[in-house]
């Protein structure tokens, strides 16, 4: 066997996705970590607990009796000025839902990993995006990672943008597919991370401080409440440009290249007849499939919140055949990514946009399925939601 050593030369190790995330979070240096174990998030928080037990971590690991408690603990710590971290999945994220809205309303820059998993019932521990989509309106930034390396970088980006905008961020990684897989990945070291992400800067009046007392999450009358929502919405709009800028900065400091701008990443044909749109690890399978096609492109959505409508419009350009392939569905409506993409390109009259629901509850999405979708897109499509199995 001919040995090539180029992967080791790039500072890569072969790690489980959960381990890669845990190592990165530890290097980012949160002051408080709290989480409640749930499959498939478990390995991330087990690793963090191990680092703490072995004296390799500086954070306080606060054990919680539920996800609701874990989210509340990091809320309190973040409100007191700490950089914090948590992670969850599926039912755990839903149990946190009430606290998630409190966190964004209090403008706390909490970063959490969601190891994406289907929601009961029926009970299913495997991957889809139902959990993240259920909290899409909770006022959290949302990123979706394709592979271990992107997950690592998105955690850095998430902290950077969260702390700059005083908004919480959810980094989505596909359960099992990314959390339980081994592949080569480079873990950024502490000193380089510090350069990109210095300690959280605390502005007076934004955190609990006995020298400068404030009330957080207090009672707001109808007029004032609407203003807080308007503020959050404006800051989400502003964060589109911030994400792009900070992603560019990330690429410079950590010296990596790709077609992405932090919001979306286009790959494939220069003048595509068909564009497929997806989020997360599915992008890898699609990219592999597209090696055999000269006229098909992939638009990977890396930031779901804020939704990069303008970027999508620009990327789609003159292509009129769009297939949105996604791992979530709103019964009685459609796939959330499809609905938002459709809204983004509203007015583009000739466009034909088709919704494919795939991979629910961990159903394998094969290259053959992608090829079948492309074949279908060449013919007449029905505009009805299609379930792929």
């Amino acid at each position: 066997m001919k040995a090539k050593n180029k992967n080791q030369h790039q500072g890569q190790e072969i790690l489980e996705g959960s381990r890669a995330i845990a190592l990165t979070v530890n290097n980012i240096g949160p002051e408080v970590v709290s989480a409640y174990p749930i499959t498939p998030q478990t390995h991330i928080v087990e690793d963090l607990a191990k680092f703490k037990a072995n004296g390799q971590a500086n954070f306080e690991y606060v054990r919680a009796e539920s996800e609701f408690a874990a989210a509340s603990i990091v809320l309190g710590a973040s409100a007191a000025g700490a950089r914090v971290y948590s992670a969850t999945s599926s039912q755990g994220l839903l149990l946190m839902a009430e606290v998630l809205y409190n966190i964004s309303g209090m403008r706390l820059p909490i970063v959490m990993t969601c190891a994406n998993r289907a929601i009961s019932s029926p009970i299913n521990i495997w991957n889809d995006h139902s959990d993240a989509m259920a909290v899409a309106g909770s006022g959290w930034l949302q990123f979706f990672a394709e592979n271990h390396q992107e997950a690592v970088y998105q955690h850095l980006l998430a902290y950077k943008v969260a702390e700059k905008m005083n908004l919480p961020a959810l980094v989505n990684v596909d359960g099992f597919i990314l959390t339980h897989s081994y592949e080569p990945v480079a873990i950024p070291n502490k000193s380089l991370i510090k350069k990109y992400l210095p300690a959280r800067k605390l502005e007076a009046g934004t955190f609990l401080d006995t020298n400068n007392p404030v009330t957080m999450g207090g009672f707001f009358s109808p007029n004032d409440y609407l203003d807080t929502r308007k503020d959050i919405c404006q800051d989400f709009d502003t964060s589109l440009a911030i994400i792009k800028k900070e992603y560019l900065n990330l690429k410079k400091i950590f010296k990596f290249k790709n077609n992405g701008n932090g919001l979306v990443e286009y790959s494939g044909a220069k003048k595509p007849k068909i564009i497929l749109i997806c989020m997360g690890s599915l992008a890898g399978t699609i990219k592999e499939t597209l090696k055999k096609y000269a006229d098909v492109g992939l638009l990977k959505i890396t930031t779901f919140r804020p939704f990069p409508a303008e970027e999508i419009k620009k990327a789609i350009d003159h292509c009129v055949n769009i297939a949105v392939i996604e791992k979530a569905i709103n019964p009685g409506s459609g796939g959330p990514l499809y609905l938002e993409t459709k809204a983004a390109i509203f007015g583009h009259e000739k466009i034909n946009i088709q919704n494919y629901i795939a991979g629910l509850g961990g159903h394998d999405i094969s290259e053959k399925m992608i090829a079948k979708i492309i074949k279908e897109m060449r013919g007449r499509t029905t505009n009805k939601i299609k379930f792929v199995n």
Partner: protein
Amino acid sequence: MEQIRIHGRGGQGVVTAAELIAIAAFKSGKYAQAFPNFGVERSGAPIQSYARIADEQIITREQVHNPNILIIQDASLLENSDILKGTDKNTLFIINAPDNYQAPIKLPSKKVFCSPATEIALKIFGKNIVNTVILGSFAKHSGLITLESLKYAVAEKFADKGKTIIKKNIQAIEVAFND
């Protein structure tokens, strides 16, 4: 790209075996990927895991449908022909079974190697833990990973388990490799 599918039962270390292959291949300078496919999470239930080895970065995430190599940790799984899905005359089979083993169903390929992994495991561990042992046979017959890189992978993966366990696993792998 080489695609490996491992079949075994819950509790037999099926997932760990795929991870060890990936770590060993990476150590040899290759790109590698490993991931599990759990069924129900209970001891004894059939489980699969996958590994891929290539010279270029591996980006696909689909399950391994057409394995070049099929590793069967528990020969009783061959009573159901589903396990052969996607295999053909070129698939390399490595089965935990004695030399004179006759499969209860017809295998599509003549490249079938038996690894007396249970026998070796009982001798060395006193328990029927075959996941590392059978990898000794995998290294020998596939040529995809070296014995050295496999030993490295075991030492790294089992670092938390202590020196004795690492030593015994390496010894078992060597016996299988030299069988």
